[in-house]
Protein backbone atom coordinates (compact mmCIF):
# COMPACT_ATOMS: atom_id res chain seq x y z
CA UNK A 1 0.00 0.00 0.00
CA UNK A 2 2.85 2.31 0.95
CA UNK A 3 4.57 1.91 -2.45
CA UNK A 4 1.34 2.67 -4.30
CA UNK A 5 1.09 5.96 -2.40
CA UNK A 6 4.79 6.67 -2.66
CA UNK A 7 4.88 6.55 -6.45
CA UNK A 8 2.46 9.45 -7.02
CA UNK A 9 4.27 11.43 -4.31
CA UNK A 10 7.49 11.14 -6.29
CA UNK A 11 5.82 12.78 -9.22
CA UNK A 12 4.18 15.55 -7.20
CA UNK A 13 6.90 18.14 -7.93
CA UNK A 14 6.56 17.40 -11.65
CA UNK A 15 2.77 17.71 -11.46
CA UNK A 16 3.05 21.04 -9.62
CA UNK A 17 5.63 22.32 -12.12
CA UNK A 18 3.48 21.13 -15.02
CA UNK A 19 0.41 22.93 -13.67
CA UNK A 20 2.47 26.06 -13.12
CA UNK A 21 3.72 25.82 -16.72
CA UNK A 22 0.16 25.49 -18.01
CA UNK A 23 -0.87 28.53 -15.97
CA UNK A 24 2.05 30.54 -17.38
CA UNK A 25 1.15 29.59 -20.95
CA UNK A 26 -2.63 29.94 -20.82
CA UNK A 27 -3.46 32.63 -18.27
CA UNK A 28 -4.56 35.52 -20.48
CA UNK A 29 -2.81 38.86 -20.35
CA UNK A 30 -4.74 42.04 -19.70
CA UNK A 31 -7.21 43.03 -22.39
CA UNK A 32 -6.06 45.53 -25.00
CA UNK A 33 -7.87 48.84 -24.50
CA UNK A 34 -10.05 50.14 -27.28
CA UNK A 35 -8.49 52.64 -29.72
CA UNK A 36 -7.48 55.66 -27.76
CA UNK A 37 -5.02 57.70 -29.71
CA UNK A 38 -3.47 58.30 -33.05
CA UNK A 39 0.18 58.59 -33.96
CA UNK A 40 2.36 58.95 -36.99
CA UNK A 41 5.66 57.06 -36.88
CA UNK A 42 8.30 57.75 -39.47
CA UNK A 43 10.76 54.95 -40.25
CA UNK A 44 13.70 55.49 -42.50
CA UNK A 45 15.17 52.51 -44.31
CA UNK A 46 18.77 52.88 -45.30
CA UNK A 47 21.88 50.76 -45.64
CA UNK A 48 20.38 47.56 -44.17
CA UNK A 49 18.81 49.18 -41.12
CA UNK A 50 15.58 50.78 -40.07
CA UNK A 51 15.81 54.06 -38.20
CA UNK A 52 14.62 53.93 -35.53
CA UNK A 53 15.31 50.21 -35.11
CA UNK A 54 12.82 49.92 -32.27
CA UNK A 55 9.46 51.70 -32.36
CA UNK A 56 6.93 51.75 -29.55
CA UNK A 57 3.18 52.03 -29.54
CA UNK A 58 0.50 51.92 -26.88
CA UNK A 59 -2.00 49.08 -27.05
CA UNK A 60 -5.05 50.11 -29.05
CA UNK A 61 -3.30 53.09 -30.61
CA UNK A 62 -4.00 53.93 -34.24
CA UNK A 63 -0.62 54.01 -35.93
CA UNK A 64 0.23 55.48 -39.30
CA UNK A 65 3.58 54.08 -40.35
CA UNK A 66 5.49 56.08 -42.91
CA UNK A 67 8.41 54.31 -44.56
CA UNK A 68 10.95 56.26 -46.55
CA UNK A 69 14.12 55.13 -48.26
CA UNK A 70 17.12 57.15 -49.24
CA UNK A 71 19.19 54.55 -51.10
CA UNK A 72 17.36 51.69 -52.87
CA UNK A 73 13.86 50.23 -52.81
CA UNK A 74 13.05 48.83 -49.38
CA UNK A 75 10.03 47.03 -48.02
CA UNK A 76 8.65 46.58 -44.54
CA UNK A 77 6.79 43.44 -43.53
CA UNK A 78 5.37 43.41 -40.01
CA UNK A 79 5.13 39.91 -38.58
CA UNK A 80 1.89 38.70 -36.97
CA UNK A 81 0.09 41.85 -38.10
CA UNK A 82 0.81 40.55 -41.63
CA UNK A 83 1.18 44.07 -43.05
CA UNK A 84 3.61 45.23 -45.69
CA UNK A 85 4.53 48.33 -47.60
CA UNK A 86 7.22 49.27 -50.08
CA UNK A 87 9.04 52.57 -50.46
CA UNK A 88 11.11 53.72 -53.40
CA UNK A 89 13.83 56.33 -52.86
CA UNK A 90 12.21 59.74 -52.44
CA UNK A 91 8.71 58.26 -52.44
CA UNK A 92 7.57 57.47 -48.89
CA UNK A 93 4.81 54.92 -48.39
CA UNK A 94 2.25 54.84 -45.59
CA UNK A 95 -0.09 52.42 -43.96
CA UNK A 96 -2.40 52.75 -41.01
CA UNK A 97 -3.29 50.07 -38.52
CA UNK A 98 -4.51 49.66 -34.98
CA UNK A 99 -1.94 48.23 -32.57
CA UNK A 100 -4.41 45.74 -31.17
CA UNK A 101 -1.89 43.05 -30.31
CA UNK A 102 0.52 43.62 -27.50
CA UNK A 103 4.03 42.28 -27.52
CA UNK A 104 7.21 42.57 -29.53
CA UNK A 105 6.98 42.15 -33.30
CA UNK A 106 9.80 41.95 -35.83
CA UNK A 107 9.53 43.85 -39.06
CA UNK A 108 11.82 42.91 -41.90
CA UNK A 109 12.76 44.35 -45.24
CA UNK A 110 10.60 42.56 -47.79
CA UNK A 111 12.38 43.70 -50.97
CA UNK A 112 15.84 42.32 -51.71
CA UNK A 113 18.03 45.36 -51.13
CA UNK A 114 21.60 44.03 -50.96
CA UNK A 115 23.97 41.79 -49.06
CA UNK A 116 22.60 42.18 -45.53
CA UNK A 117 18.97 42.25 -46.67
CA UNK A 118 17.96 39.05 -44.78
CA UNK A 119 19.15 40.66 -41.55
CA UNK A 120 17.48 44.06 -42.02
CA UNK A 121 15.20 43.88 -39.02
CA UNK A 122 13.37 46.27 -36.74
CA UNK A 123 11.10 45.78 -33.73
CA UNK A 124 7.66 47.16 -32.94
CA UNK A 125 6.89 47.05 -29.22
CA UNK A 126 3.25 47.38 -28.25
CA UNK A 127 2.62 47.55 -24.50
CA UNK A 128 4.02 44.82 -22.28
CA UNK A 129 5.75 41.84 -23.90
CA UNK A 130 3.81 39.05 -22.23
CA UNK A 131 5.38 36.41 -24.45
CA UNK A 132 8.83 37.28 -23.11
CA UNK A 133 7.58 37.16 -19.52
CA UNK A 134 5.89 33.82 -20.15
CA UNK A 135 9.14 32.55 -21.71
CA UNK A 136 11.14 33.69 -18.69
CA UNK A 137 8.65 32.02 -16.35
CA UNK A 138 8.72 28.78 -18.32
CA UNK A 139 12.51 28.79 -18.42
CA UNK A 140 12.80 29.28 -14.68
CA UNK A 141 10.36 26.41 -14.17
CA UNK A 142 12.40 24.32 -16.59
CA UNK A 143 15.59 25.05 -14.65
CA UNK A 144 13.81 24.05 -11.45
CA UNK A 145 12.46 20.90 -13.08
CA UNK A 146 15.92 19.95 -14.27
CA UNK A 147 17.64 20.74 -11.02
CA UNK A 148 15.15 19.55 -8.44
CA UNK A 149 13.07 16.76 -9.82
CA UNK A 150 15.64 14.60 -11.55
CA UNK A 151 17.21 12.06 -9.30
CA UNK A 152 20.99 12.40 -9.21
CA UNK A 153 23.01 9.66 -10.77
CA UNK A 154 25.17 7.56 -8.50
CA UNK A 155 28.51 9.09 -7.63
CA UNK A 156 31.23 7.75 -9.90
CA UNK A 157 33.90 5.58 -8.37
Amino acid at each position, binding site marked *: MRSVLATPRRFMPLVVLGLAALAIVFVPGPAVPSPSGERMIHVEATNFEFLPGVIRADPGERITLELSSNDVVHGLYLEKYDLSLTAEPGQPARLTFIADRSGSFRFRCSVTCGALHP*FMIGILRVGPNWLLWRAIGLSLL*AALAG*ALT*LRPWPKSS
Partner: protein
Amino acid sequence: MAKVELTRFAAVRAILRSRWPQLALQAVLLGGLLFTILSGLLGTPVGSHNFGIVYVWIAWWGSLILVLIPLLGRGWCSVCPIPLPGEWLQRGAVHGPSGKGIGLNLRWPRRLRNIWLQNAAFGLVAMLSAVILTQPAATAWVLGLMLVAALALSLVFERRAFCRYLCPVGGFIGLYSQLAPVELRVKDRAICAGHTEKTCYTGNGEGYGCPWQVFPASLAKNTACGLCMECLRTCPYDNLALNLRAPGVDLMQPTGRRLDEAFKSFVMLGSAVAYSAVMLGPWGGLKAAAYGVGSPAWLGYALAVLALAFGLLPGSFYLTVIAGGAIRRSLTTARRAFVPLAYGLVPLGLAAWVAFSLSFVFANASYLGPALADPLGGGWNLAGLAGVSWRPLMSGLVPWMQIGALAGGLAWSSGATRRIAVQTGYPAPGAPIAFSAALTMALLWLLLG
Protein backbone atom coordinates in the same frame (compact mmCIF):
# COMPACT_ATOMS: atom_id res chain seq x y z
CA MET B 1 16.45 3.74 -20.91
CA ALA B 2 17.85 0.45 -22.16
CA LYS B 3 19.83 0.48 -25.38
CA VAL B 4 18.27 -0.89 -28.54
CA GLU B 5 20.75 -2.41 -30.95
CA LEU B 6 19.66 -1.26 -34.41
CA THR B 7 22.23 -3.43 -36.18
CA ARG B 8 20.61 -6.60 -34.91
CA PHE B 9 18.03 -6.03 -37.65
CA ALA B 10 19.43 -7.70 -40.75
CA ALA B 11 18.24 -4.98 -43.13
CA VAL B 12 19.83 -2.17 -41.09
CA ARG B 13 23.09 -4.12 -40.76
CA ALA B 14 23.16 -4.85 -44.48
CA ILE B 15 22.57 -1.22 -45.44
CA LEU B 16 25.24 0.04 -43.07
CA ARG B 17 27.83 -2.58 -44.02
CA SER B 18 27.36 -2.04 -47.74
CA ARG B 19 29.40 0.79 -49.24
CA TRP B 20 26.93 1.54 -52.01
CA PRO B 21 24.19 3.53 -50.21
CA GLN B 22 26.79 5.68 -48.44
CA LEU B 23 28.80 6.18 -51.62
CA ALA B 24 25.71 7.08 -53.63
CA LEU B 25 24.73 9.72 -51.08
CA GLN B 26 28.29 11.03 -50.89
CA ALA B 27 28.48 11.27 -54.69
CA VAL B 28 25.25 13.28 -54.84
CA LEU B 29 26.44 15.57 -52.05
CA LEU B 30 29.86 16.03 -53.67
CA GLY B 31 28.12 17.03 -56.89
CA GLY B 32 25.96 19.42 -54.87
CA LEU B 33 29.04 20.88 -53.17
CA LEU B 34 30.84 21.51 -56.47
CA PHE B 35 27.68 23.04 -57.94
CA THR B 36 27.32 25.21 -54.85
CA ILE B 37 30.87 26.51 -55.26
CA LEU B 38 30.20 27.13 -58.94
CA SER B 39 26.97 29.00 -58.24
CA GLY B 40 28.75 31.08 -55.59
CA LEU B 41 31.39 32.15 -58.10
CA LEU B 42 29.29 32.43 -61.25
CA GLY B 43 25.72 32.92 -60.06
CA THR B 44 23.92 36.05 -59.01
CA PRO B 45 25.85 38.10 -56.44
CA VAL B 46 22.57 38.78 -54.60
CA GLY B 47 22.84 36.49 -51.62
CA SER B 48 19.14 35.85 -51.00
CA HIS B 49 18.72 34.70 -54.60
CA ASN B 50 21.96 32.74 -54.94
CA PHE B 51 21.70 28.96 -54.89
CA GLY B 52 24.91 28.56 -52.88
CA ILE B 53 23.92 30.96 -50.11
CA VAL B 54 20.34 29.78 -49.88
CA TYR B 55 21.03 26.05 -50.00
CA VAL B 56 24.06 26.13 -47.71
CA TRP B 57 22.91 28.58 -45.06
CA ILE B 58 19.17 27.88 -45.04
CA ALA B 59 18.60 24.32 -46.31
CA TRP B 60 21.80 22.59 -45.16
CA TRP B 61 22.29 24.62 -41.98
CA GLY B 62 18.65 24.25 -40.99
CA SER B 63 18.72 20.50 -41.58
CA LEU B 64 22.00 20.15 -39.69
CA ILE B 65 21.07 22.10 -36.57
CA LEU B 66 17.37 21.33 -36.34
CA VAL B 67 17.34 17.67 -37.39
CA LEU B 68 20.63 15.92 -38.11
CA ILE B 69 22.67 16.80 -35.02
CA PRO B 70 19.83 16.37 -32.49
CA LEU B 71 18.79 13.02 -33.96
CA LEU B 72 21.93 11.53 -35.52
CA GLY B 73 24.87 13.31 -33.90
CA ARG B 74 27.72 12.96 -36.36
CA GLY B 75 25.41 11.48 -39.00
CA TRP B 76 26.29 14.33 -41.36
CA CYS B 77 30.03 13.52 -41.05
CA SER B 78 29.34 10.02 -42.38
CA VAL B 79 28.26 11.48 -45.74
CA CYS B 80 30.00 14.87 -45.80
CA PRO B 81 31.56 15.41 -49.24
CA ILE B 82 34.41 17.71 -48.17
CA PRO B 83 36.98 15.04 -47.21
CA LEU B 84 36.12 12.71 -50.09
CA PRO B 85 38.55 13.78 -52.87
CA GLY B 86 41.48 13.71 -50.45
CA GLU B 87 40.40 10.44 -48.95
CA TRP B 88 40.02 8.81 -52.36
CA LEU B 89 43.54 9.93 -53.33
CA GLN B 90 44.93 8.80 -49.99
CA ARG B 91 43.33 5.39 -50.43
CA GLY B 92 43.84 5.12 -54.17
CA ALA B 93 40.26 3.91 -54.39
CA VAL B 94 36.74 5.24 -54.35
CA HIS B 95 34.76 2.20 -53.36
CA GLY B 96 36.65 -0.32 -51.26
CA PRO B 97 40.16 -1.27 -50.20
CA SER B 98 41.70 -2.19 -53.53
CA GLY B 99 44.15 0.41 -54.79
CA LYS B 100 47.42 1.88 -53.62
CA GLY B 101 47.01 5.40 -52.39
CA ILE B 102 49.34 8.34 -52.44
CA GLY B 103 50.49 10.64 -49.66
CA LEU B 104 53.08 10.90 -46.91
CA ASN B 105 50.83 9.22 -44.34
CA LEU B 106 52.43 11.11 -41.44
CA ARG B 107 50.96 11.01 -37.98
CA TRP B 108 49.21 14.15 -36.80
CA PRO B 109 51.46 16.08 -34.36
CA ARG B 110 50.87 14.97 -30.80
CA ARG B 111 50.56 18.53 -29.47
CA LEU B 112 47.72 19.21 -31.88
CA ARG B 113 45.67 16.14 -31.01
CA ASN B 114 42.84 18.18 -29.55
CA ILE B 115 40.16 20.53 -30.85
CA TRP B 116 41.87 23.85 -30.13
CA LEU B 117 42.47 24.34 -33.85
CA GLN B 118 38.78 23.66 -34.49
CA ASN B 119 37.89 26.20 -31.80
CA ALA B 120 40.15 28.75 -33.50
CA ALA B 121 38.77 27.89 -36.95
CA PHE B 122 35.20 28.38 -35.72
CA GLY B 123 36.22 31.67 -34.09
CA LEU B 124 37.64 32.82 -37.42
CA VAL B 125 34.45 31.88 -39.27
CA ALA B 126 32.39 33.65 -36.58
CA MET B 127 34.41 36.86 -37.07
CA LEU B 128 33.71 36.76 -40.81
CA SER B 129 30.20 35.31 -40.63
CA ALA B 130 28.27 38.40 -41.76
CA VAL B 131 30.20 38.31 -45.04
CA ILE B 132 30.31 34.52 -45.45
CA LEU B 133 26.56 34.22 -44.89
CA THR B 134 25.61 36.94 -47.35
CA GLN B 135 28.24 37.05 -50.11
CA PRO B 136 27.98 34.10 -52.53
CA ALA B 137 31.64 34.37 -53.52
CA ALA B 138 32.71 34.29 -49.87
CA THR B 139 30.69 31.14 -49.23
CA ALA B 140 32.20 29.58 -52.36
CA TRP B 141 35.72 30.48 -51.27
CA VAL B 142 35.21 29.09 -47.77
CA LEU B 143 33.83 25.80 -49.12
CA GLY B 144 36.62 25.64 -51.71
CA LEU B 145 39.27 26.30 -49.07
CA MET B 146 37.84 23.56 -46.87
CA LEU B 147 37.90 21.17 -49.82
CA VAL B 148 41.53 22.04 -50.63
CA ALA B 149 42.62 21.95 -46.98
CA ALA B 150 41.02 18.51 -46.50
CA LEU B 151 42.72 17.28 -49.67
CA ALA B 152 46.12 18.69 -48.72
CA LEU B 153 45.96 17.24 -45.21
CA SER B 154 44.95 13.86 -46.61
CA LEU B 155 48.08 13.84 -48.74
CA VAL B 156 50.36 14.75 -45.83
CA PHE B 157 48.80 13.14 -42.78
CA GLU B 158 47.22 9.76 -42.24
CA ARG B 159 43.45 9.20 -42.24
CA ARG B 160 40.98 12.07 -41.76
CA ALA B 161 43.19 14.62 -40.02
CA PHE B 162 41.12 17.54 -41.38
CA CYS B 163 37.81 16.20 -40.04
CA ARG B 164 39.23 15.22 -36.69
CA TYR B 165 41.39 18.23 -35.90
CA LEU B 166 40.64 21.19 -38.16
CA CYS B 167 37.10 21.25 -39.56
CA PRO B 168 35.22 24.13 -37.85
CA VAL B 169 31.90 22.37 -38.41
CA GLY B 170 33.12 18.95 -37.26
CA GLY B 171 34.22 20.45 -33.95
CA PHE B 172 30.76 21.51 -32.84
CA ILE B 173 29.03 18.51 -34.40
CA GLY B 174 31.32 16.35 -32.24
CA LEU B 175 30.49 18.35 -29.12
CA TYR B 176 26.73 18.15 -29.66
CA SER B 177 26.82 14.53 -30.86
CA GLN B 178 27.10 13.66 -27.17
CA LEU B 179 23.41 14.52 -26.92
CA ALA B 180 22.31 12.30 -29.80
CA PRO B 181 20.12 9.24 -29.21
CA VAL B 182 22.44 7.05 -31.34
CA GLU B 183 25.91 5.67 -30.75
CA LEU B 184 28.33 3.25 -32.32
CA ARG B 185 29.99 1.01 -29.73
CA VAL B 186 31.57 -2.41 -29.40
CA LYS B 187 29.30 -5.08 -28.01
CA ASP B 188 31.88 -6.97 -25.95
CA ARG B 189 35.24 -5.42 -25.11
CA ALA B 190 36.67 -8.81 -24.16
CA ILE B 191 36.43 -9.88 -27.79
CA CYS B 192 38.43 -6.80 -28.85
CA ALA B 193 41.05 -7.49 -26.16
CA GLY B 194 41.58 -10.97 -27.56
CA HIS B 195 41.67 -9.85 -31.19
CA THR B 196 45.34 -9.28 -31.90
CA GLU B 197 45.00 -7.94 -35.46
CA LYS B 198 42.73 -5.05 -34.41
CA THR B 199 41.38 -4.82 -37.95
CA CYS B 200 38.97 -2.08 -36.87
CA TYR B 201 42.02 0.16 -36.53
CA THR B 202 44.37 -1.33 -39.11
CA GLY B 203 41.83 -2.29 -41.80
CA ASN B 204 41.47 -5.46 -43.86
CA GLY B 205 40.02 -6.58 -47.17
CA GLU B 206 36.52 -5.60 -46.05
CA GLY B 207 37.25 -2.01 -45.12
CA TYR B 208 39.65 0.64 -43.88
CA GLY B 209 41.09 1.16 -40.44
CA CYS B 210 39.17 3.82 -38.54
CA PRO B 211 39.53 7.04 -40.59
CA TRP B 212 38.86 9.04 -37.43
CA GLN B 213 41.89 7.53 -35.65
CA VAL B 214 39.77 5.95 -32.98
CA PHE B 215 40.14 2.45 -31.54
CA PRO B 216 36.45 1.50 -31.32
CA ALA B 217 36.85 -0.56 -28.15
CA SER B 218 37.94 2.60 -26.35
CA LEU B 219 34.90 4.61 -27.49
CA ALA B 220 33.07 6.02 -24.49
CA LYS B 221 31.62 9.12 -26.15
CA ASN B 222 30.41 10.11 -29.60
CA THR B 223 32.69 13.13 -29.99
CA ALA B 224 35.36 11.54 -32.21
CA CYS B 225 33.34 8.81 -33.94
CA GLY B 226 32.40 9.90 -37.46
CA LEU B 227 29.82 7.10 -37.93
CA CYS B 228 31.60 6.11 -41.15
CA MET B 229 30.79 2.43 -40.43
CA GLU B 230 34.24 1.16 -41.45
CA CYS B 231 34.62 -0.75 -38.17
CA LEU B 232 31.28 -2.42 -38.82
CA ARG B 233 32.80 -3.72 -42.06
CA THR B 234 36.22 -4.72 -40.76
CA CYS B 235 35.30 -6.48 -37.53
CA PRO B 236 35.48 -10.24 -38.18
CA TYR B 237 33.48 -10.98 -35.02
CA ASP B 238 30.50 -8.76 -35.79
CA ASN B 239 31.27 -7.05 -32.51
CA LEU B 240 30.18 -3.51 -33.42
CA ALA B 241 26.67 -2.18 -32.89
CA LEU B 242 24.74 0.94 -33.75
CA ASN B 243 22.52 1.56 -30.74
CA LEU B 244 19.54 3.69 -29.88
CA ARG B 245 20.14 5.05 -26.40
CA ALA B 246 19.06 7.69 -23.92
CA PRO B 247 20.04 11.10 -25.33
CA GLY B 248 22.94 12.81 -23.63
CA VAL B 249 24.41 9.91 -21.69
CA ASP B 250 27.89 10.86 -22.95
CA LEU B 251 27.80 13.97 -20.76
CA MET B 252 27.96 11.73 -17.72
CA GLN B 253 31.10 9.93 -18.86
CA PRO B 254 33.61 10.86 -16.15
CA THR B 255 36.58 10.07 -18.39
CA GLY B 256 37.75 12.08 -21.36
CA ARG B 257 36.54 15.49 -20.20
CA ARG B 258 38.95 18.04 -21.60
CA LEU B 259 39.56 21.76 -21.47
CA ASP B 260 39.48 22.11 -25.28
CA GLU B 261 36.01 20.54 -25.41
CA ALA B 262 34.86 22.62 -22.44
CA PHE B 263 35.97 25.73 -24.33
CA LYS B 264 34.12 24.54 -27.41
CA SER B 265 30.88 24.77 -25.42
CA PHE B 266 31.70 28.39 -24.50
CA VAL B 267 32.72 29.25 -28.07
CA MET B 268 29.42 27.90 -29.37
CA LEU B 269 27.33 29.63 -26.71
CA GLY B 270 29.16 32.92 -27.23
CA SER B 271 28.71 32.69 -30.99
CA ALA B 272 24.99 31.95 -30.62
CA VAL B 273 24.59 35.07 -28.49
CA ALA B 274 26.63 37.18 -30.94
CA TYR B 275 24.79 35.86 -34.00
CA SER B 276 21.40 36.46 -32.38
CA ALA B 277 22.37 40.07 -31.65
CA VAL B 278 23.94 40.79 -35.03
CA MET B 279 21.62 38.94 -37.37
CA LEU B 280 18.28 39.08 -35.58
CA GLY B 281 18.62 42.31 -33.63
CA PRO B 282 17.55 45.82 -34.69
CA TRP B 283 21.03 47.38 -34.38
CA GLY B 284 22.18 48.53 -37.80
CA GLY B 285 25.55 49.75 -36.49
CA LEU B 286 26.35 46.27 -35.23
CA LYS B 287 25.45 44.71 -38.58
CA ALA B 288 27.57 47.26 -40.43
CA ALA B 289 30.52 46.58 -38.11
CA ALA B 290 30.21 42.81 -38.60
CA TYR B 291 30.01 43.27 -42.36
CA GLY B 292 32.82 45.79 -42.77
CA VAL B 293 35.69 43.29 -42.69
CA GLY B 294 39.00 45.10 -42.28
CA SER B 295 37.49 48.33 -40.94
CA PRO B 296 38.19 49.59 -37.39
CA ALA B 297 34.54 48.89 -36.51
CA TRP B 298 34.88 45.30 -37.69
CA LEU B 299 38.08 44.91 -35.68
CA GLY B 300 36.18 46.04 -32.60
CA TYR B 301 33.34 43.64 -33.41
CA ALA B 302 35.72 40.71 -34.02
CA LEU B 303 37.60 41.36 -30.79
CA ALA B 304 34.31 41.62 -28.89
CA VAL B 305 33.09 38.26 -30.29
CA LEU B 306 36.39 36.58 -29.45
CA ALA B 307 36.45 38.15 -25.99
CA LEU B 308 32.89 36.94 -25.34
CA ALA B 309 33.50 33.39 -26.55
CA PHE B 310 37.03 32.83 -25.28
CA GLY B 311 37.18 35.15 -22.27
CA LEU B 312 33.99 36.55 -20.81
CA LEU B 313 31.84 33.40 -20.88
CA PRO B 314 34.45 30.90 -19.66
CA GLY B 315 35.81 33.47 -17.20
CA SER B 316 32.42 34.28 -15.69
CA PHE B 317 31.51 30.59 -15.57
CA TYR B 318 34.79 29.84 -13.78
CA LEU B 319 34.15 32.61 -11.25
CA THR B 320 30.59 31.35 -10.76
CA VAL B 321 31.82 27.82 -10.09
CA ILE B 322 34.55 29.09 -7.77
CA ALA B 323 32.11 31.36 -5.92
CA GLY B 324 29.72 28.46 -5.41
CA GLY B 325 32.59 26.34 -4.11
CA ALA B 326 33.85 29.14 -1.85
CA ILE B 327 30.44 29.59 -0.24
CA ARG B 328 30.41 25.89 0.55
CA ARG B 329 34.09 26.01 1.62
CA SER B 330 35.20 23.64 -1.08
CA LEU B 331 37.54 25.63 -3.33
CA THR B 332 39.75 22.73 -4.42
CA THR B 333 36.79 20.70 -5.60
CA ALA B 334 35.44 23.77 -7.39
CA ARG B 335 38.65 24.27 -9.40
CA ARG B 336 38.61 20.62 -10.43
CA ALA B 337 34.91 20.77 -11.28
CA PHE B 338 35.21 23.64 -13.80
CA VAL B 339 35.81 21.44 -16.84
CA PRO B 340 33.26 18.71 -15.96
CA LEU B 341 30.59 21.31 -15.14
CA ALA B 342 31.18 23.03 -18.49
CA TYR B 343 29.82 19.86 -20.11
CA GLY B 344 26.54 20.70 -18.40
CA LEU B 345 26.27 23.68 -20.77
CA VAL B 346 26.27 21.47 -23.88
CA PRO B 347 22.45 20.97 -24.05
CA LEU B 348 21.86 24.70 -23.58
CA GLY B 349 24.39 25.43 -26.35
CA LEU B 350 22.58 23.23 -28.84
CA ALA B 351 19.25 24.72 -27.73
CA ALA B 352 20.63 28.23 -28.29
CA TRP B 353 21.66 27.32 -31.84
CA VAL B 354 18.29 25.66 -32.48
CA ALA B 355 16.46 28.78 -31.23
CA PHE B 356 18.62 31.12 -33.33
CA SER B 357 18.34 28.92 -36.43
CA LEU B 358 14.54 28.58 -36.15
CA SER B 359 14.13 32.31 -36.59
CA PHE B 360 16.77 32.59 -39.29
CA VAL B 361 15.71 29.53 -41.30
CA PHE B 362 11.93 29.96 -41.24
CA ALA B 363 12.12 33.68 -41.99
CA ASN B 364 14.15 32.99 -45.12
CA ALA B 365 12.94 29.54 -46.22
CA SER B 366 10.76 31.01 -48.97
CA TYR B 367 13.97 31.87 -50.87
CA LEU B 368 14.54 28.14 -51.49
CA GLY B 369 12.11 27.92 -54.43
CA PRO B 370 13.37 30.88 -56.47
CA ALA B 371 17.04 29.94 -55.87
CA LEU B 372 16.33 26.42 -57.13
CA ALA B 373 14.45 27.76 -60.13
CA ASP B 374 17.39 29.89 -61.23
CA PRO B 375 20.51 28.44 -59.59
CA LEU B 376 23.08 30.24 -61.73
CA GLY B 377 21.26 33.55 -62.09
CA GLY B 378 20.66 33.03 -65.80
CA GLY B 379 17.03 34.10 -65.74
CA TRP B 380 15.68 30.54 -65.69
CA ASN B 381 12.40 29.47 -64.16
CA LEU B 382 12.76 25.75 -63.44
CA ALA B 383 9.58 24.13 -62.12
CA GLY B 384 7.90 27.54 -62.19
CA LEU B 385 9.30 28.47 -58.77
CA ALA B 386 11.01 31.71 -59.75
CA GLY B 387 7.94 33.77 -58.95
CA VAL B 388 7.49 32.54 -55.38
CA SER B 389 7.50 35.69 -53.30
CA TRP B 390 9.25 36.10 -49.97
CA ARG B 391 7.23 35.56 -46.85
CA PRO B 392 8.36 34.44 -43.40
CA LEU B 393 7.01 31.00 -42.56
CA MET B 394 5.26 30.11 -39.31
CA SER B 395 6.04 33.46 -37.72
CA GLY B 396 3.34 32.85 -35.10
CA LEU B 397 4.70 29.46 -34.14
CA VAL B 398 8.45 30.10 -34.28
CA PRO B 399 8.64 32.09 -30.98
CA TRP B 400 6.94 29.24 -29.12
CA MET B 401 9.31 26.74 -30.73
CA GLN B 402 12.21 28.93 -29.60
CA ILE B 403 10.81 29.06 -26.07
CA GLY B 404 10.39 25.27 -26.09
CA ALA B 405 13.96 24.78 -27.31
CA LEU B 406 15.52 27.14 -24.80
CA ALA B 407 13.41 26.02 -21.83
CA GLY B 408 14.05 22.38 -22.74
CA GLY B 409 17.76 23.04 -23.16
CA LEU B 410 17.90 24.80 -19.81
CA ALA B 411 16.06 21.94 -18.08
CA TRP B 412 18.43 19.45 -19.66
CA SER B 413 21.48 21.52 -18.76
CA SER B 414 20.28 21.94 -15.18
CA GLY B 415 19.73 18.20 -14.79
CA ALA B 416 23.11 17.40 -16.34
CA THR B 417 24.84 20.01 -14.15
CA ARG B 418 23.29 18.58 -11.03
CA ARG B 419 24.34 15.06 -11.94
CA ILE B 420 27.89 16.14 -12.82
CA ALA B 421 28.05 18.01 -9.51
CA VAL B 422 27.10 14.84 -7.66
CA GLN B 423 29.61 12.88 -9.71
CA THR B 424 32.49 15.26 -8.99
CA GLY B 425 31.57 16.12 -5.43
CA TYR B 426 30.96 19.79 -6.31
CA PRO B 427 28.77 21.12 -3.52
CA ALA B 428 26.94 24.05 -5.15
CA PRO B 429 25.26 23.04 -8.44
CA GLY B 430 22.89 25.98 -8.01
CA ALA B 431 25.67 28.37 -9.05
CA PRO B 432 26.33 26.97 -12.55
CA ILE B 433 22.57 26.40 -12.98
CA ALA B 434 21.99 30.09 -12.21
CA PHE B 435 24.66 30.90 -14.83
CA SER B 436 22.77 28.82 -17.42
CA ALA B 437 19.48 30.47 -16.45
CA ALA B 438 20.98 33.96 -16.82
CA LEU B 439 22.35 33.06 -20.24
CA THR B 440 18.94 31.71 -21.26
CA MET B 441 17.28 34.96 -20.19
CA ALA B 442 19.76 36.92 -22.30
CA LEU B 443 19.00 34.75 -25.32
CA LEU B 444 15.24 35.05 -24.77
CA TRP B 445 15.57 38.82 -24.64
CA LEU B 446 17.61 38.86 -27.86
CA LEU B 447 15.20 36.58 -29.70
CA LEU B 448 11.82 37.68 -28.31
CA GLY B 449 12.41 41.01 -26.61
